[in-house]
């Protein structure tokens, strides 16, 4: 079976498990309770509930030290069936009686076992058939939506799926760290490296523990799943917010498929990282904020209307007081009747508060950057809805909800911290002072979790992505000519001049110029001046158009438009924060991801508002929908005609495909703990649950200088040696990047130091060269025991089979370990 086929199977299985757990089960549970909501809202709520529950379940079980597959499964099934029984008024006792009766019939041979099973399976089949009927009904009623949704999904799948089936290894050096944290969840050690938002890790652990899918497979393929959900979240929120039916597809599709965006903004989607997992929940939080204000208003209006129309009642004659016992009986009877007649009712605004709370909490347990972005959007929302937010009927509930969601999210971390677990390195940064802006305005934020970013940048063809900032002539055009703060390109002369304080207009111009410069550098792949200017235009237009909606007494929609515009404005300030002299919460490279993600929302709202206003003369909805469909067609047509369709990317991994192929085969064909892989680094965490890892630098150092007189054994039956014939550029390139292993490399001295830098750039070439010649010599000595397990153009894996009762001494004289190598 090819690895590509295997990967497709794996991603399908993971997708089904994840969707089953986080969408299907909650949807089945809550569907009736969510009557009145649109399908996309129901799906969002179900999804949020599923993620929220599972993550907190894992936290709870881990903190109680009772986390294992049994408790994890029961922790979902038991509450599920209990709540379902309550919601559906299932009479459990009756059901049990019925089962007892049926089993009795089987035991008495009145009913055959096969017949019983047939009945059970028929019932299940009927449920499934009913569900499928409902699905088909939905599809029949919404054929265009269905087609557009499938097309959108296919677009995302193609854009991000190609890399998945062509590149098997991890694409960022962060992933082994996360892999390690998830591995230790399996060992009952929550926050093994320190307190950190563990939502993503909890979800991965749950899927791994319950389904048996290896963690390293999850880390490889889950990026596809979460990227799909990121794009679905965008689509669903737009669908839920916008008035026209199809504009959402156009905006979201343009974001997914166009090449206008810089690689910065989407390359992280090729990796399974917590930040991207948390990104899924940002827009739903905002949506539920919008929805809360809307539904709460409606409920208050209805309540007020109901209060106004309630008939006046005559003062009735007081009834005779009942004896105590009779009173109690009466109360119980009333409660029972009330329960039977009126099952638990939650208002729509309350559901929206739940949704908001869950999403916000999930951003917190996902990644703090997501919380910052969600917080910015919430701030924009609060400003836009000022006329409601700062009133008694809203303020308290919203603040309480935010507080509750923060507490729920922080509670597990707080408990761990209080019980002695220190903060993880990157959290220490977050808790400390934000970085001070440097003189040149480039910012010196060195968030430890930013390793992925810098590696990402170095791995990508950075020149093509327009990352060059100062040297770009186009950037210089809009950077401002007057030596604005943070504008390097503008400062050519370096002469000191007498500075007159700039006027307000100049300040605004400089600000916009700086924003434009940074946005052009980080967000867009090329100039695209029109598209850039459209951002600023849309921000202004949205505010202006919102006035129309306010005038039309549609303040909700108007406030939403203002929120979006403000949000983009706040993001713009965030992306240039270091240049403004304010603490930099986030590196521009990271901010650009959210910035790009915000643009379809901005454009979607703008397009929708324009359409609604232009077609306000008709009440026929289908005209508006037709117009929006035509707009989608136009967007698609222009994109294709102008050659703006992005080619699906295949990015460089930090491991060869051969390495992952070998690992997959090794795990499959050997018993656990009978083998060791000697490889550079990433495999250490991948195989942690199955075998042992040994570093080549340790192997080489032990026989350096003393050769065959070292005593070097590895006590497993099989040892696999991974050797890159053409060493990878792990964390950056060097002068002779891409050169194969050679005698020249083997003659060089072994690199000094420890940790990952040993396997960076030229050091990796030296180590691999040494390993290559060591393996050749060792194979000469033991030709029948040391075999080539796998070989490709750039990678070779040797397998050594040894007698565990008399291990081979791996220390030999291989010609280059005399300790006198040439220094670098």
């Amino acid at each position, binding site marked *: *079976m*090819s*690895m*590509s*086929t*295997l990967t497709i199977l794996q991603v399908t299985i993971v997708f089904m498990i994840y969707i089953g757990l986080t969408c299907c089960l909650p949807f089945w549970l809550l569907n009736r309770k969510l009557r009145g909501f649109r399908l996309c809202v129901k799906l969002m709520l179900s999804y949020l509930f599923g993620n929220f529950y599972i993550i907190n379940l894992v936290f709870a079980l881990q903190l109680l030290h009772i986390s294992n597959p049994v408790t994890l499964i029961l922790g979902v099934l038991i509450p599920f069936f209990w709540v379902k029984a309550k919601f559906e008024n299932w009479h459990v006792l009756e059901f049990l009686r019925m089962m007892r009766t049926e089993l009795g019939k089987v035991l008495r041979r009145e009913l055959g076992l096969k017949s019983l099973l047939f009945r059970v399976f028929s019932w299940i089949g009927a449920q499934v058939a009913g569900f499928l009927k409902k699905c088909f009904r939905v599809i029949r009623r919404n054929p265009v939506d269905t087609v557009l949704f499938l097309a959108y999904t296919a677009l995302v799948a193609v854009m991000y799926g190609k890399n998945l089936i062509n590149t*098997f290894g991890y694409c960022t050096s962060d992933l082994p760290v996360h892999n390690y944290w998830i591995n230790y969840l399996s060992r009952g050690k929550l926050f093994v490296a320190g307190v950190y938002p563990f939502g993503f890790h909890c979800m991965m652990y749950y899927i791994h523990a319950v389904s048996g899918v290896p963690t390293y497979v999850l880390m490889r393929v889950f990026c596809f799943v979460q990227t799909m959900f990121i794009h679905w979240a965008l689509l669903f929120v737009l669908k839920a917010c916008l008035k026209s039916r199809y504009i959402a597809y156009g905006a979201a599709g343009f974001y997914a498929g166009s090449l206008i965006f810089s690689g910065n903004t989407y390359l992280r989607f090729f990796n399974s990282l917590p930040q991207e997992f948390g990104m899924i929940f940002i827009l739903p939080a905002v949506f539920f904020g919008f929805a809360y204000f809307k539904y709460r208003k409606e409920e208050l209006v209805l309540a007020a209307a109901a209060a106004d129309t309630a008939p006046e009642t005559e003062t009735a004659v007081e009834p005779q007081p009942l004896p105590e016992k009779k009173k109690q009986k009466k109360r119980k009877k009333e409660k029972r009747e009330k329960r039977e007649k009126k099952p638990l009712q939650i208002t729509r605004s309350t559901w929206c508060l739940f949704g908001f709370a869950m999403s916000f909490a999930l951003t917190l347990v996902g990644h703090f950057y997501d919380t910052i972005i969600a917080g910015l959007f919430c701030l924009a929302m609060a400003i836009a809805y000022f006329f409601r937010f700062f009133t008694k009927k809203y303020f308290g509930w919203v603040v309480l909800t935010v507080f509750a969601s923060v507490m729920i999210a922080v509670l597990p971390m707080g408990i761990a911290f209080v019980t002695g677990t220190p903060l993880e390195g990157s959290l220490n940064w977050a808790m400390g002072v934000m970085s001070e802006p440097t003189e040149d305005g480039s910012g010196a934020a060195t968030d430890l979790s930013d390793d992925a970013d810098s590696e990402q940048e170095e791995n990508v063809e950075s020149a093509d992505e327009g990352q060059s900032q100062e040297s770009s002539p186009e950037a210089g055009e809009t950077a401002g000519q007057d030596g604005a703060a943070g504008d390097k390109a503008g400062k050519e002369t370096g002469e000191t001049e007498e500075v007159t304080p700039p006027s307000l207009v100049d300040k605004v111009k400089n600000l916009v110029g700086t924003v434009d410069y940074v946005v052009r550098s980080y967000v867009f792949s090329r100039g695209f001046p029109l598209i850039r200017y459209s951002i600023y235009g849309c921000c202004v237009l949205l505010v202006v158009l919102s006035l129309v909606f306010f005038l039309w007494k549609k303040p909700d929609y108007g406030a939403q438009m203002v929120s979006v515009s403000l949000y983009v404005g706040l993001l713009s300030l965030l992306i240039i924060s270091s240049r403004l002299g304010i603490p930099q919460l986030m590196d521009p490279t990271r901010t650009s991801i959210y910035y790009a993600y915000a643009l379809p929302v901005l454009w979607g709202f703008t397009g929708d508002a324009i359409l609604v206003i232009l077609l306000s003369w008709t009440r026929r909805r289908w005209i508006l929908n037709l117009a929006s469909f035509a707009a989608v067609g136009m967007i698609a047509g222009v994109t294709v005609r102008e050659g703006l369709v992005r080619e699906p990317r295949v990015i460089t991994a930090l491991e060869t*495909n*051969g390495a992952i*192929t*070998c690992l*997959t*085969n090794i795990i*499959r*064909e050997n018993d656990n703990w009978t083998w060791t892989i000697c490889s550079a680094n990433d495999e250490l965490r991948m195989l942690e649950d199955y075998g042992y890892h040994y570093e080549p630098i340790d192997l080489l150092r032990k026989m350096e200088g003393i*050769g*065959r*007189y*070292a*005593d070097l*054994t590895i006590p497993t039956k099989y040892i696999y040696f991974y050797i890159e014939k053409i060493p990878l550029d792990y964390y950056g390139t060097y002068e002779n990047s891409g050169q194969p292993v050679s005698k020249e490399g083997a003659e060089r001295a072994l690199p000094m130091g420890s940790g990952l830098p040993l396997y960076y750039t030229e050091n990796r070439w030296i180590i691999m060269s040494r390993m290559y010649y060591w393996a050749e010599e060792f194979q*000469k*000595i*033991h*030709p*029948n*025991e040391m*075999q*080539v*397990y*796998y070989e*490709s153009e750039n990678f070779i894996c040797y*397998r050594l089979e040894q*007698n565990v*009762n*008399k*291990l*081979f*001494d791996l*220390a*030999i004289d291989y010609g280059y370990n005399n300790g006198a190598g040439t220094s670098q």
Partner: protein
Amino acid sequence: MLSRRQFFTISLIMLVLFFLFQVTSVLKEQWNQYDKNEYAQTAYTKLSAGDLYRINRSAKTISESYVLLIGDAQEDALGKMVKLWCEYAKRDLLCCQSLEEVPWEEIPTPKLILLDSNYLDFAGETEQLAKLAEKGTDLIFCNLPDVNTIAENKALRELLGIFSVRKAEVQLLGIDLFEGFLLGGRAIYQVEEDAGEEEKKQQDLDLTVPWYEVRSGTKTYMLGLIDKEAYEAKNEKMKLENENFPSIIWRNSVGDGHVFAVNGNYMEDVTALGILSGMVYELEEYTVYPVINAQSFVVANYAGLSSESDDTMQQLYSRSQKAAFQDIFWPSLTSISSRSQDRPTVFLAPKLDYDTQEAPDGKQLVFYLKMFREGKIENGLSLYCTSQTPLTKKLEADEAFYKENVPDYTIRALYVDRDNEKEYGRIKQARALESVRTVYMGYDGTDAPAYYREKEVTKQRATQDGFVHTFSDNLRLRSLETALGYSSIMVDMNRLVMPEDIQEDVWEKCSERLASYTVTYWKPFQAFDKTTLSEGDQRIRRFFAISGTGSQYEKKDNRITLKIDSFDGQAFFILRTHNKSVSGVKGGSFREIEKHAYLITADQKDVTITLENDISLFYTDKG
């Protein structure tokens, strides 16, 4: 009341049943051609010693794949074993008594040199040996020089791969033979501390050896076991791992060649045969060599036709000698042999004491021959007797006895006990022995286990005693199975008829030991055929006729092609590979002996063996 019709019907049914049951017995009796030796025809081949493939021993005509022995192949036990191995392995042998004697200019550079340390001058010749090894010649030190010689000679230590000489002499707890070297898997020759007397007797290996520690570049096949705790308690600073234990047989790599070393006297008897085969296997990507493929179960001195020892039998088993054999020994023997799926050969001893007048019981002879025929057991004649009767007279008496009872019966196998081996040489032309094709003898570690005795007569030796199985027996068994696919268990019934120890030499204990040995120790060799001695004789003749195989390996197609000279209907080979499995054989069939070891049965002259690699990735990154 029965009617006449009912009575008649019932009677008829009873008659029919009676007839059916009886007729099968009668037919069995009629068709049992017990008076003819079935193996006289079925196991016959016209091959003789004239067809024996003779290895070349002359420097002028020696082939390229020859073996050079530095030692004495005529007088020395070690040299004799090497010579024997070369004959079995069909490899030419050049023997010189020192390195100086070797005519290097006349002969191609040997690929394999076997060294007897007693014929080497290590002070001056170590360097020469090292150079040979570096250039690609493989060396086998069949024994090692004195420990002091090794300790003082650094170059020799490097050649042998000895890291350190920890001690001149160490007492081992046991010996660990690792799997993959000899057939039969791993064996730990160690007696537990709380073992009984009987088990302690199993340990007969030499446990006092010099302590050589081998490390980098070496692979160990046999390792001495040390009492770790006791050693570490005595030497506080020393921590022992398995890698520090004394090696017994190991291999070192020097340049392009390999150097084997045997620390002990294992090469001085037939155990050497398998060890050498194992070493050659370790040197090659694969080896394929002809084997006999015969495992026999021989019951000697089956004295169930006479009554010389009635008193002893009465005392021990409460019955006469004939009755004891018939009622106790015979059922037990058949049960044991059928459980282990053996094909017994029974040497009937008509009498033990030919000085008495009592004649052997002809009826018993017929009874046993019928039993043998049914059980496909071969019958042979035993030369053993307790009296001082000349063998010729004994043979005449036996011949007359057979002629009287089963005149057409042909004896093909003859048992010659140790005391009569020389005497047999004088009487081998006797008329009674005209039809004999194979002679069976007791165990002799310094003699060939199977060979030609005369031009038309082969010799087969017992390799194991059925009632005793020590560690050295087990090692020898593995060795012979590896080298020849041959073993022979001898069950000498004389021990029971004339017991030396009344407590020990009783059938109850002996049969228990026999049963457990045959089932346990021969289990790893189930792939080899069980044969009678005549069948073994046929296979031995065919084996010796083969001139070795021109085997060719086509790497591209992963195939081995065998071309067999002097093919006579069937031939057997052992194929041992590293990291490859046999997937099919054209021109024959195969059976797996164990991992990477196969018994190939060739039904045609040309055989093609298709291999497949062990390393085959289930998930590939292609497509």
